[in-house]
Structures are given as C-alpha cells and as structure tokens.
C-alpha cells in the first residue's frame, strides 16, 4: 500500500473542495508558479519604474498583494483566468488611452472617440456592462429552475459581469490618474466605488460556493442582492452623477485605505450572501407547507430587504420608492408562491446550512480584521483608535451580531430555521451599517453621503 493509492480520488462526489478538477488541494503545480511569477514580474516592474511614487507601506502592500492573489488563485484556480483576463483588458484600455505614446501617457478624452473605450473598456462602460450582465444573470438563474441551459448561462453571465466589473475598476483607477496625477487613487473611496466592489465580491464568493457545492439553484437568490446593489448603483449614477471620480479628502489619503476597505467588503459581501442562503434555506424548509401564516414573516422580511436600498436611497416616500417596494413584494411573493418546485431544486438543508455557516465564518474573520485595521488607521488619522463614531459603533454591532450567531451555533448547536432567520435579519443590520449610517447619521465616516 503506497501513498499513490491514497492520493487518487478516493471519494467521488460532485463537491470538490478546490472548486476545479483537483480532488484535493495539492501542492502548487507549474501553472500556479507561472501565475505567481507573472504577478511578481508585474509588481517588480511597478516597483522599479514607479517605486518613487510609493511609500514603504504601499510597496509592502503591493508585495503582499502578489502573495495574496497567488494564494487565492491556488485555492481557487478560476480566479487566475479572471485576473489574467481583467488585467489584460485593463492594459488594453490603458494602451488605448495612451494613443501609442507609451503606457505612462494618456488622454482621458479619448474615451469619447475610440470605439473600444467608448463602448467596452472605459471604466463607466465596463461597469455598466457589469450591471447589465448581473441583471441578465439573475434572470437566467431563475429561469434555470426549469432549464439547465439557462442556469449554465447564469453562471456564464455572472463570470462575464465579474470580469467586466473588475476591468472597470482597474481602468477607473487609471482614469483617476489621467485626470490629474494628484487625483488618482484606488477605486474604493466612495459609496459608488464600494458598491461596485460589493457586487463583485458577493458574486465571486457565490461563484466559489456554486462550484464547490455543485449547485446553481442558489444563483437566483444571491444575485438578487447583487441586482439590488446594481439598481442602487444605476440610480446613484443617473440621478446623482456619483460615478465621477473625485479627489480624496486628506483623511483618506493613506495606504490604510487599500486594505481596510476591501477587507470590510469581503465581510459585507459574505454576510449578504449568507443572508440570501438563509432565505433559500427558509424556502426549502417551507417548501411543502400549506400554512400561509408561517410564510408571512418570511414574506415581510424578504420584501423589506428587497426594498432596502431604496428605503435608504430616498428620504421621503416617493413614487419610485413605492414602485420598488411593490416590485420587491411581488418578487418575494412569486418566489414564495413557487416554493414547492424551487425547494425541490435547492440543495439539501444540510448543504445550505453549511454554506451559510462558511460564508459567515469567512465574513466574520475578515470583518474582524477590517475593523482592527480601521482602528489602527483611525489612530493615525483621527488620533484615537476608537471613538464611538456611528460607523464604528455600527461595525461593532454587526460584529457582535455575527459573533453571537457563531457562538450560538458552535456552542449551543443552533441550526435550522432560527439560524436562517437570524442570518437573513443580519442583512438588515449589515446594510444599515453599510448604507444607513451614511444616510441618517453624521460622523467621521461621511465619505459616501447620499
């Protein structure tokens, strides 16, 4: 009996932990190493040519990013294709902007005249493509309950949306610098940019779980929250011109932003994902029930959550608001009406519960780190690591909420509908911390005011 027999996939199951054809996460093979080298060469190029524009910590973050991305790509190989494709597209866009005068040059107005920039690769066009693809993907996933092809299309379109979104953000980063050398900054500085980031992270985590648990039935649920974000994003750019790149306020000019914000949004993204999985759990749980009374809390909660971006988006009860709320109610109502067939397609309760737990655990870990990073940054920028600013306090409330959830689960074995309701309700808390604080409470974190 040798080791080789042990390493052959002993256990055939659609759930493969690495998300690709590997049975187990093995040692990095040559493609992983090649990918690492590509990233390292890119970082090395940036360090040698633009090192003088970066401070010590920014260089450190760049090197850390190389390691981090290689590690993430090894954990889940499809990320490599995404990073390579988006990176090349962004480079193509930068080249188009440069008009052949070397990548360091560029003219922002070429976005109006060059075909590829105008319709595909300029940041706004790419982000709008992302929005459109996410919306289409959601529809496909729902149709996917009756058609396998449509479900496959859903996955395909979601990948497309993520690709477009990542490209858009990368190009946006460059466009900031084209506007003025002192204006450019990493695109995570205001509500518009982080909403794009939020959509991308949520979708990526979803795609990971989709692959890992070999089910497309959750796509419609998770992409619902992404589509809500997209609708908000569109409203925000059409009515408030929020897409325009603004220079940073002095407090944000720090390398801390590069790690604090993304870490936070991994938290927000996975928390939202777990909430939607919780919703699916409850649908599955009530799949065969005939009693309407038991569905009412789910319906109300679902409708409120659907409408939430708009509750936060407008200060008074407007027609749009009512329309959106009505639409949310109809969507949730329809899902509940078709709960029988939907629940038969959903994976088992055990799997849903596991995804929920995993998403919250990942989110919680990142949220903890993000909050700590925020405290460290605050100590530099505002003079106190913690001063009970509304955003900080709400971050603490979110943290305590999920800490309690995990505690109850790990210690008391909390399972079933209660855990699912709690995860779904957690979305209320999370989105208040994310959006509501910016809307209703004034404080130091008022970068993304509506």
């Amino acid at each position: 009996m040798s080791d080789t027999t042990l390493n052959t996939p002993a256990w055939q199951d659609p759930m493969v932990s690495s998300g690709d054809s590997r049975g187990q996460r093995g040692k990095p093979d040559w493609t992983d190493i090649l990918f690492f080298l590509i990233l390292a060469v890119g970082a090395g190029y940036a360090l040698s040519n633009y090192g003088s524009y970066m401070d010590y910590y920014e260089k450190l973050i760049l090197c850390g990013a190389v390691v981090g991305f290689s590690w993430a790509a090894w954990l889940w190989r499809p990320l490599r294709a995404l990073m390579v494709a988006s990176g090349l597209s962004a480079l193509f866009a930068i080249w188009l902007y440069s008009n052949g005068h070397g990548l360091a040059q560029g003219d922002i107005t070429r976005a109006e005249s060059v075909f590829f920039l105008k319709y595909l690769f300029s940041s706004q066009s790419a982000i709008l493509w992302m929005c459109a693809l996410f919306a289409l993907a959601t529809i496909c996933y729902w149709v996917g309950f009756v058609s396998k092809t449509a479900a496959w299309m859903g996955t395909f379109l979601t990948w497309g949306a993520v690709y477009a979104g990542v490209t858009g953000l990368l190009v946006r980063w460059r466009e900031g610098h084209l506007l003025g050398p002192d204006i450019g900054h990493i695109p995570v500085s205001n509500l518009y940019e982080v909403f794009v980031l939020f959509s991308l992270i949520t979708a990526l985590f979803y795609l990971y779980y989709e692959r890992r648990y070999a089910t497309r039935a959750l796509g419609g649920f998770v992409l619902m929250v992404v589509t809500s974000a997209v609708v908000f994003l569109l409203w925000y750019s059409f009515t408030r011109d929020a897409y325009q790149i603004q220079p940073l306020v002095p407090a944000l000019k720090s390398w801390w932003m590069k790690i604090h914000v993304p870490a936070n949004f991994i938290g927000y993204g996975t928390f939202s994902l777990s909430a939607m999985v919780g919703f699916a759990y409850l649908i599955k749980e009530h799949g065969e029930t005939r009693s309407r009374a038991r569905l009412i809390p789910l319906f109300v909660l679902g409708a409120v959550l659907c409408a939430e971006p708009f509750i936060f988006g407008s200060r008074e009860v407007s027609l749009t608001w009512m329309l959106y709320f009505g639409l949310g109610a109809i969507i949730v109502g329809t899902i509940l009406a078709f709960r029988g067939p939907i629940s038969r397609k959903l994976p088992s309760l055990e799997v849903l519960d596991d995804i929920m737990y995993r998403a919250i655990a990942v989110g919680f870990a990142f949220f903890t780190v993000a909050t700590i990073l925020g405290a460290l940054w605050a100590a530099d920028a505002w003079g106190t690591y913690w001063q009970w600013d509304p955003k900080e306090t709400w971050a603490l409330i979110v943290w305590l909420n999920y800490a309690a959830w995990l505690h109850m689960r790990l210690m008391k074995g909390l399972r079933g509908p209660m855990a699912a309701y709690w995860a779904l309700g957690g979305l209320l808390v999370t989105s208040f911390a994310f959006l509501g604080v910016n809307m209703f409470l004034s404080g130091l974190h008022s970068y993304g005011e509506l």
Partner: protein
Amino acid sequence: MRFAVSLLMFICVASLIGTVLQQNQAPSTYVDRFGPFWFALFDKFSIWHIYNSWWFLLIMGFLVVSTSICLLRNAPKMIRDARSFREYVRGGSLRAFHHRVELASPLAPQEASGRIEQWLRSHGYKWKRREDDEGVLLAAKKGGANRLGYIFAHAAIVVICVGGLLDSELLLRLQVWLGDKHPITQNMMIADVPESGRLPAGNPSFRANMLVPDGSISGNAIVSLENGVLVQPLPFSIKLNKFDVEYYSTGMPSSFKSDVEVIDHDTGKTFNKVIEVNEPLRYKGITVYQSSFDDGGSKLELLGYPLHGSGEQTFDVEGVVGQAAKLPAAAGVSNVSVDLTGLRVINVENLDNGKEPQPKDVLQQVAAVTGSAAGAKNEHLRNVGPSVQYRVVDSNGQSYEFTNYMLPMQLDGSEVFLAGVRRSAAEPYRYMRIPADANHSVAEFMSLRAALNDPGMRAQAAERFAQANANDAAQRPLLQKAAEGALESFARGGFNEIVVKVPSAEREKVLGFAVPMIQLSLAELRDINRARNGLAPVDRSNPQAQQAAMRWTQTALLAFANLPDYPAPVFLSLKNFQQVQASVFQVARSPGKNIVYLGCIFLVLGVFSMFYIRDRRIWVWIRPQGQGSELLAAMTSQRRTLDFSREFERFKDAFKRLST
C-alpha cells in the same frame, strides 16, 4: 457566560442609542429637543455622553470581570483537554461513536498498525500508542490549537476592554475627584489658570486640544470635561512655523500640514517636524495629531457703511479676528458691539445657478454615464474669494451673525455682493444681493441708499418720474405725490410698509402698481445721485446697456426691500486683511493603546484558529484475530460540519484500503 452575553447585548443597545442621539452637544440642544423634564431624567444617565457614562463603564467593568472569571475557570481545563490524547479510552467504547468503522483485516496487528501510523503521519496527526493484553490502541489528534482559539478570543475581549478603560475618561475623572480639580468654565488666559484647573504633567491618560497660531508657541493643551476645561501641561512646546493648506484644482483641500518646531522642556533640544493628517508626531509617549485649523488672529481692515439715515460717510474699522472691533464715532452708532469672528480666504461655491436637470430619454441617460469616469460636476465650482464673518450684538443682547464677501460674483448675469445673515450657527445664512458698481464695490449702492433716505432727493426723483411717465399735465402732480409717498414708505420699511395699510384683498393690485413706480423712480434717483457725486450718467446707449442698468436697479430694489429687516445699523465690507492661521492639534497620551493592539492580535489569532484550525481525533483499536486482525476506528471532532462528514468518508475509504 449567559451574564456576559447579556452584558454584551446591553452594550450593543446602549451604543445604538449613542449613534442615533448625537453625542457631546451643548446641554441647551438637548433641552430644546426633549424638554426640561426628560432632559433632567436622561441627564441622570448621562446619555449625552453615553460611552463615558458611569453605567457604561460599569458594564464594561463587569464584562471584564465576568469574562476573566470564565476564562480562568475554563482555560486550564481546555488546555489539558487539548493536550490529552485520550489514549485510555476503552476499546469497546469506540462502538458508541457515531462516526466509526469496523472491519476485519488479513494483516497482522503489527503491520496494520504500522500502515495506519504511516497514514496518520502523512495526514498531520500526532498519536499515542497504547498496548495492552487485548490489543493496540492508537489515539491520534490534530488541530488542538482550535481550543486555543477560544482562549485567545475571550482573552482578547478582556484585554481590549481593559485597554479601552485605561483610555476612557475614567482616569481623568478619578483625578478630578481625588485631586480636587475644578474644570474652568469662564474665559481666561492660560497663565491665569489656578492650580485646581491644571492637570499634572505626568497625567498618564488624556486627550486634549491645542490651538497654535502661526509663529506662536504653546506648551499647554486643553482637556474638555463636562462643561469646562482643564489645562494639561506638556513636556514639550510646539512652535508653529507655518500652517499650510494645499488645494486640488477643484478647490477641495488636498492636505493640511503644520510645519512645527518641537522644543523639549527637559533637555532644551529642538527639532523640526511636519505634522499632517495621517502623519502624527510621536514624542515622549505623547502623540500630536493634525486635527483641524482655525484663525489665529488675522488682522482685518474693514470699510464701514452706515445703513440708517441719509448720511453716507464711510468709516474705517480695524480689528483682529477673535476679538471685538471698535466702531469709530464717525459710524454714528453707539449701542452695538461688533465681534470679528472669522476670515475665510478661500470660498469655493457652486455657482450652478440651480439649473433643473432636464428630462432625457433613456438612451441619452445611459450615454451620459458611459465612457470615462471623468466628472463634469466641478465646472460650476468657483473660488469666490475671501469673506469676513462678524457678530453684531445690540443693546438688548440680540445677536446676529454676518458674512460678507470681499469680491462681487456673477449671479444670474449681474455682478453682486452677497451679504449673509443668520441668527446663530444652527441656521444657514440668508443672503441679500447688493449690486456692484463700475468699480466692483458696494459704494454706489450705499450712496443710493443714503439718497433714498434723503427727502429732498426723493422729491427730485419723484418729480422726474412724474415728468417722464404722466400722460398729461394734470396727472403729473398726482403721480409725483404718489411716487414720493411710495418712495418714502419703501425707504422706511420696504414693500411691507406700502401694503400695511391696504386691505389684504387689494395688496396685490397696489403692489402691481407701486413696484414698477418705485423701480422707475429709483432709476431716476440713481441718475440724480450720480450727477450729484460727479459720476458719468448711466450708460443707456444700446439695448444691452439698458438691460444692464435695469437689472442693476432691480437688484438694488430687492436689496432695499430687504434692508429694513437687516439686523445691523452698519455694513462692514472687507477692504484688506493679513491672514494669520492657527493649527488645531489633538494631543493624546493613551496608555491603553498598545494593550488594545495586543488584544486585537489575540482576537485575530483567536478568530482564525477557531474557524480555520479543525480539530480531529481518531482512535484505532487493533486486536489480533487468528492470522489477521480486527480493526475498529472512530473519528470525532468538536464541530460536526459537512466537511467533517466528508473527511470521515475519506478516512473510512482509506482505512478500508489500508487494511487489505
């Protein structure tokens, strides 16, 4: 445990209140909001500064104690448990496990156990081997650090809370209480502060503010407590060489920098340092942060215009921001006092003229947001130049705040000066528009104001108005009288004065007649006044010039209509200034900071080891059975997740293969 969780919930709710209710405002704000009864009640629980209230700190204290006790009680047990291999499990009891596998193998016990040990090693297990007369028991485990996660996470709560308590106002309050300190509530110079208003230089924990004007030096910071302040001496002084604000092309500030010289009191050593946002100065355990900026006593030269009577003698006022200004006798007002409160050298305003967004069709909408993310938003932002703020308090103690711009700006096609008034900082400014003259000043308007208040001039203007507008000679005196009366009322009290005696049903009609009349008379008055002042007649040679002249009169008319309500007897315009900026620093010594950071490290270690180190235990019991052996294995984990079931399946599979 349950106690700690309910305490945490309580903290959660309390912090929630703290975010909804704005903290640390002036008590009067809360009285206004809640009324005196509720204010007094809420004040007992000091919900205006919840996070430093006695009960909040008490709960934190309880949390620390309860979590520590819990930790002390459970940690040794957990560690012992994590270290133990539990090799004294009876072989037979393994049958009680849910995840178990039992099979017979043709291999001899020694060989079987060898293979299994090899498998365990390759999968990162540590194990103990116990042999007795019945057979061999392998007790293996991995991921014991998972238990450390709990310990770390709970220790983190204690450590962070302790650090936080050290940095709260607790120590400060203790000092005030034990050291007989009294916060100062009235204005005084730092040098005059008595010993009871000074904190010791060795104060271990404080958070204070320090304002240093350009070129000045300061070695004391100010700690606010309750409604007063305490002086905190520092072991070093800071001299502000220069405070610098840099701006983006859009007019937004891009950085605040203070170039300072630090003078150590003990050694006399000095060094230079640039303090900016995100780049604090750390020296002798004290951190100095750039927190904001203020006026450090800029010198202002103002030109005053009287707003009452027919006098138009201007007067000069000189003063310093932050102090009272003396109005000269020439101003003719004695019963008001003027405080100069601010100078803003750069004012970036949106001069968009408030255009309503036009409805566009969907395609245009989409097209508008495609392409690059370059903004067109800032093209209406203009730096409209310096402005001065002052407060006028009349003899009744009524005070108003004013803001006047030094330069005119283009609004709705005409050049105007904005003069803002508000009752207090809680309100927005309401602006009056004063038309600018050919020299870009308010002089002509002010002169016209004097003329409007001069009965002789009004009569002349009314006469010329009647001459130009009467249809026949008989109507002329009537019209002249009407115009004179209207001008007189208008000068006294604006449009209100004209309609006050008219029944409300007819007001519209009267105004419809009076307003054009006043406007035309005002145009005449302007001509007369210009002639008197030796100025060239108003240019009305072409339609454009006529339009401009009419707009000027219209703007003046509206300004005059507002003047009777303007709550000051004088108008002060900014003539010249010499800016002195001041940098506001936050100065802090926080002994708990490193403790909190240590707690944060614990927390991260705890959280990650709790979720990502999986603990597993495997027991394998091997008994000889003829030539071969009989194998019984069981697997367990703290957490039975899907992952664990899958891992057990894999183990079972491998186990079967190993034993054949």
